[in-house]
């Protein structure tokens, strides 16, 4: 009953004019960020943190969250009209969406992604509303040992599930943790790995790392593409921005299924929007009566993945808000934002700041309505963004990144860091090393070390505390499985196929 009052009160918070304004600003910027190549939601959120510093945390978080789910809407536009996903998770949409656009059905493809995103996005927020309180009350019993093993599981899952090579994911994760150890150790007051640079005493901020790895590296890649002449031209919107009865009938099933798949995948650590949309695509292809149309402009191939991709964002907020442990790169950046505003997400937040939590969650219902308006009747405005010459756009992204990084401390050390991490991100991209695990472990690193040491202090230096409770044991087992699975799976498959032959 109390929860119900909190939820209702959350609607009062999110309907305040100031918060409606920030929801609108967030989803508007999210759509722009999603449409434009070069800056993704992670870099967009990171760049805004220093500028919104000192704002009231509820409004600031509502806006940053709006960028996060707004970017997913915008990403599909670029995928459909240029065949390059404006945002990584829209990669499946670029297959059938672009084919539809070539056949003169760009309007229908854009309409079905906006409507699907709206329905599935709302399914996701309903799921978030329902699951948040039970999970948060379970997490109230968590001690430092439980938190340590939970973070360990989130990191192992992310490192082995993103990218082709689990080994590279593990190396990227540890690299992020190593960066997190730079600075003054909170328990002993001892400076570690500062190399005599005073700015490093407070550690390497995650904002500069994210801006470098996501925005600057993308600029390098984009400018390289221009030089090679591989940049693509945008198509014009053709056909009416609505669905025929037949198309509507074919899309509704994929939208519902995509919405549920996306939410479930989103809650689990590691997988994220890209895997959710791939799973939805393969599901629809298997269920379809005409699978041969997939890849040649099947509307189900746009409706399903685009819906999955949008309910995934709400799902990904479940572990972040209830446990305080994100399961991927973008939510890790959100956690960093929460902490910078002095808000610690987790079970206690639901008790201490129900106005903030429910104001934020409920603002997503409102934001989804705003997004469907921005992305359907007003889509023509955003498509114009695609006609900005990329040769101007990418240099401007560098200048914007420089402003954002300089705004943190007013120090050029942060500018050198975004350049350095930009180069690192570019090289990582060329070598197929995923960067999302690095960001996750960088944000979690400090908390992870603290909870490890607290647990050891409680137990008097006995490691037994990590396998004393059912929760820690099952989390440890799941961590080991997620590391071992990519290595064991091929062997099992080999055994299976040998069995078939004999």
């Amino acid at each position, binding site marked *: 009953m109390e929860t119900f009052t909190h939820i209702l009160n959350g609607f009062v918070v999110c309907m305040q004019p100031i918060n409606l304004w920030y929801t609108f600003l967030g989803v508007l910027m999210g759509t722009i960020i999603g449409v434009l190549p070069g800056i993704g939601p992670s870099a967009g959120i990171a760049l805004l943190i220093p500028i919104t510093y000192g704002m009231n945390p509820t409004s600031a978080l509502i806006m940053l969250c709006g960028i996060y789910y707004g970017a997913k809407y915008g990403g599909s536009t670029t995928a459909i009209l240029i065949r390059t996903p404006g945002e990584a998770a829209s990669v499946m949409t670029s297959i059938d969406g672009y084919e539809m656009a070539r056949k003169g059905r760009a309007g229908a493809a854009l309409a079905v992604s906006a409507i699907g995103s709206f329905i599935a996005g709302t399914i996701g927020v309903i799921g978030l509303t329902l699951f948040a309180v039970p999970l948060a009350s379970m997490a109230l019993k968590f001690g430092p040992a439980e938190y340590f093993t939970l973070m360990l599981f989130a990191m192992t899952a992310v490192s082995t599930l993103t990218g082709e090579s689990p080994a590279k994911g593990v190396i990227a994760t540890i690299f992020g943790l190593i960066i997190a150890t730079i600075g003054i150790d909170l328990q002993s007051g001892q400076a570690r790995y500062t190399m005599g640079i005073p700015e490093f005493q407070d550690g390497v901020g995650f904002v500069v790392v994210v801006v470098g790895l996501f925005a600057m590296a993308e600029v390098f890649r984009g400018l390289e593409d221009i030089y090679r002449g591989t940049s693509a031209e945008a198509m014009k919107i053709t056909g009416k921005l609505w669905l025929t009865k037949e198309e509507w009938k074919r899309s509704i099933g994929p939208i519902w299924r995509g919405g549920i798949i996306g939410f479930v995948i989103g809650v689990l650590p590691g997988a994220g929007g890209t895997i959710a949309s791939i799973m939805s695509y393969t599901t629809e292809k298997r269920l379809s009566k005409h699978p041969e149309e997939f890849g040649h402009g099947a509307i189900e191939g746009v409706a399903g993945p685009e819906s999955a991709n949008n309910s995934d964002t709400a799902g990904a907020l479940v572990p972040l808000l209830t446990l305080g442990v994100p399961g991927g790169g973008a939510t890790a950046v959100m956690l960093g934002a929460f902490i910078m505003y002095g808000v610690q997400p987790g079970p206690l937040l639901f008790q201490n700041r129900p106005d903030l939590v429910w104001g934020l969650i409920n603002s997503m219902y409102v934001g989804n309505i705003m997004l469907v308006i921005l992305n359907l009747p007003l889509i023509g405005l955003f498509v114009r963004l695609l006609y900005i010459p990329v040769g101007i756009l990418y240099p401007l992204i560098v200048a*914007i990144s420089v402003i954002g990084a300089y705004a943190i401390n007013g120090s050029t050390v942060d500018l050198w860091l975004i350049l350095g991490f930009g180069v690192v991100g570019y090289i990582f991209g060329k070598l197929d090393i995923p960067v999302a695990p690095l960001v996750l472990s960088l944000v979690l690193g400090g908390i992870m070390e603290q909870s490890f040491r607290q647990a050891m202090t409680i137990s008097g230096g006995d490691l037994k505390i990590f396998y004393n409770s059912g929760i820690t044991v099952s989390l440890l087992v799941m961590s080991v499985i997620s590391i071992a699975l990519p290595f064991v799976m091929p062997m099992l498959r080999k055994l299976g196929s040998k069995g078939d032959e004999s």
Partner: protein
Amino acid sequence: MADRIILACTLVLAGVYFWATAQIPSLELGDPLGPKAFPRMLGVGLLLGAAMLLAEIIRNTAKAKLTAEQGGESTEPKWDRHHWLVVAIAVWTAIYIVIFEPLGFILSTAIYLMALTAYFNRNRWLMNVLTSVLFAVISYFMFTKLLGVNLPPGILPF
């Protein structure tokens, strides 16, 4: 080949990190672990990652041999010839950072943008110069006067 470079870099990083950890003076007061225990675990984790990568390299070489024997194409990515371009952009951005505070935001940003757009958005001089100058001036006043973000004024009087 690329994977072998990553393996070598990972091992070097692990070595440097173990060495740097040993340099931290220990003051173990009340805290049973001290500031060095967690970093040591990370060093071990890095070695574990390197071992996993080695296993993948061995598996992939075996696979590559198999496809080569069957007359298949090599999956090894070709080393790109355009990497010098990225080096040039990085150096130009480094120069931008060096002149950022002495010359100030407006001048350094306008110079940085004009050169980059002149190269990547060729033959559209008017458009490039206008965007570079207008972006530098408008963003300077928007961030310093409206949003309270400090940007260096440099040699310009405002």
